[in-house]
């Protein structure tokens, strides 16, 4: 059997952030959604499952109990099992401690995995760090910025990477970890049968003891970094706004572009 560990994250809906009077983020009543990049990770894993017989996808997520619903949605899409890594002691983990915890869960629940699939970024933190941290802790190779795969068999896969200056094609054997970028396709929707099937699935949960981790290794205590202050971003630009007729708007635009040395002004 070909075993895929898919790592996903629940994130606050960052398009809908509201501010309190003290310029802190209002956290109450903010919807949690699956990190958009992880949807592509899921799609990537499902595409492999379609091409490679006898593939099993186990979804891992670290988060509160409510994250079970997200796992069930992913099972409804075609993933096979869900693992919720959850413990109050995990709270406040940075990418190092998160990587440590998730890699321990994979080692415990799915030690004979072939491939780990992560989204390239999470939209809340956008560090792109947890995937490579997991790879380092498990001592396996990583391929980041993956756009697609071409040939795959149970021993190896050929992947295309989208880098800032071009497209790279690499081949790797398993085990390996990949971080997946968004792609142009429309992610699939769950079928009625899928949703029914998911309702009856048991989600496995792991806490700190199950993973043989100590309190100093997890959560805020196990995190080398910590936030010393958080503040609202303030602009240095002077926010002048003009409501003019068309010709005056064009003249203004010409003047401003000319000041900056644009041609044809």
């Amino acid at each position: 059997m070909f075993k895929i560990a898919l790592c996903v994250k629940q994130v606050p809906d960052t398009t809908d952030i509201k501010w309190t009077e003290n310029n802190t983020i209002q956290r109450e009543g903010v919807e949690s959604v699956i990190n958009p990049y992880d949807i592509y990770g899921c799609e990537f894993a499902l595409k492999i499952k379609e091409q490679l017989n006898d593939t099993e996808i186990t979804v891992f997520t670290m988060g509160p109990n409510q994250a079970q619903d997200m796992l069930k949605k992913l099972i409804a899409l075609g993933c096979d099992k869900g693992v919720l890594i959850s413990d109050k002691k995990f709270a406040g983990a940075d990418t190092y401690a998160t990587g440590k915890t998730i890699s321990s869960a994979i080692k415990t629940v799915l030690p004979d995995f072939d491939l780990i699939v992560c989204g390239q970024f999470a939209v809340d933190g956008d560090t792109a760090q947890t995937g490579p941290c997991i790879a380092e802790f498990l001592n396996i190779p990583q391929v980041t910025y993956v756009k697609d795969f071409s040939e795959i068999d149970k021993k190896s896969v050929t992947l295309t990477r989208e880098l800032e200056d071009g497209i790279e094609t690499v081949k790797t054997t398993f085990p390996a970890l990949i971080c997946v970028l968004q792609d142009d396709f429309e992610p699939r929707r769950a079928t009625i049968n899928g949703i029914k099937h998911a309702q009856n699935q048991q989600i496995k949960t792991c806490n700190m003891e199950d993973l043989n981790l100590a309190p100093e290794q997890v959560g805020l205590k196990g995190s080398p970094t910590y936030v010393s202050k958080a503040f609202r971003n303030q602009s240095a630009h002077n926010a002048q706004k003009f409501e003019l007729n068309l010709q005056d708007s064009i003249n203004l635009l010409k003047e401003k572009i000319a000041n900056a040395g644009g041609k044809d002004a």
Partner: protein
Amino acid sequence: MPNQDNSGIMIYAQITNENYIHTVFYELLDKAHELSQKLGNVEISAVIFAPESKLEEYKESFRNMGVNRVYYFDNPKLENYSSIYYSKLLQELVKEVKPEILLIGATTQGRDLAPRVSAGLHTGLTADCINLDINEKGQLAATRPTFGGQLMATILCKNYPQMATVRPNVFKVHSVNYETNTEFIKKDTSIIENLYNPVEIKEFKKTTQTLINDLDNAEIIVAGGMGLKNEKGFELLKEFADKIGGSVGATRPAVESGLAPHSIQIGQTGKTVRPKVYIACGISGAIQHTVGMENSEYIIAINNDADAPIFDIADCGIVGDVFEILPEYMKN
């Protein structure tokens, strides 16, 4: 906790496919000089993965830059970037040299390398910083956008080295001539002979863009958002950009709905730019976008929604219809 053994600032100098040192290195170096001063003039070192045969060229690149030492690794296996080899060698070097700060450019390579190095060294890493400073306790205070850019967080690190990545174009380079004697030190690479690296590079195709764009070096950028409605809107934008000598950029929603390629996306999950003039056309001004362009010297916004948040950060906001203003501009 503070460990007196660690001292100095180390910077990773990425060698590009065209065999020069990535410009983000010089931006990090400029900031490193400022940090070094605040720490009492600590040593600044750089790391390159480069063959000895090319060393003379690179020596030229480091001349008068104020780098005390350059450590280099030369091994045929290191010709192409490999996360396994590079991260292992960098970890070993850090264990030996013990810098208090390790800075890496947030290129795709840097973002692949840095987290792996930090995990292996059991230390913290702050990604995509927009500012680096030294606090009153002598710690690296790394500020980065979070929550889709809506919040800024200043992050400290308990362990050493304190690691940070910074994207290209975030820090400015001030030309200063340092009369420093730079020592080049070759480091042993035998440790990688026992490592297994199954990732094999088959092919690399350099991107040839139809929208010819060099957003990193553009003095004028004309960027479009969902207000451009469709591909026709981006064609209009391109025509306008050509007319005034600018490059074209796009917001994430515009890229996600297929109006523009990912390579020209500006914002938190795209590029960071700092042109002389940034002209935002039909862009509402979501913070995920503005974090990537607010360092532009002068921002012009054109939007028909007078309440669009983009007007809060524009130096000159023009309330109006892009589809009227741009064609008319090009006519006369």
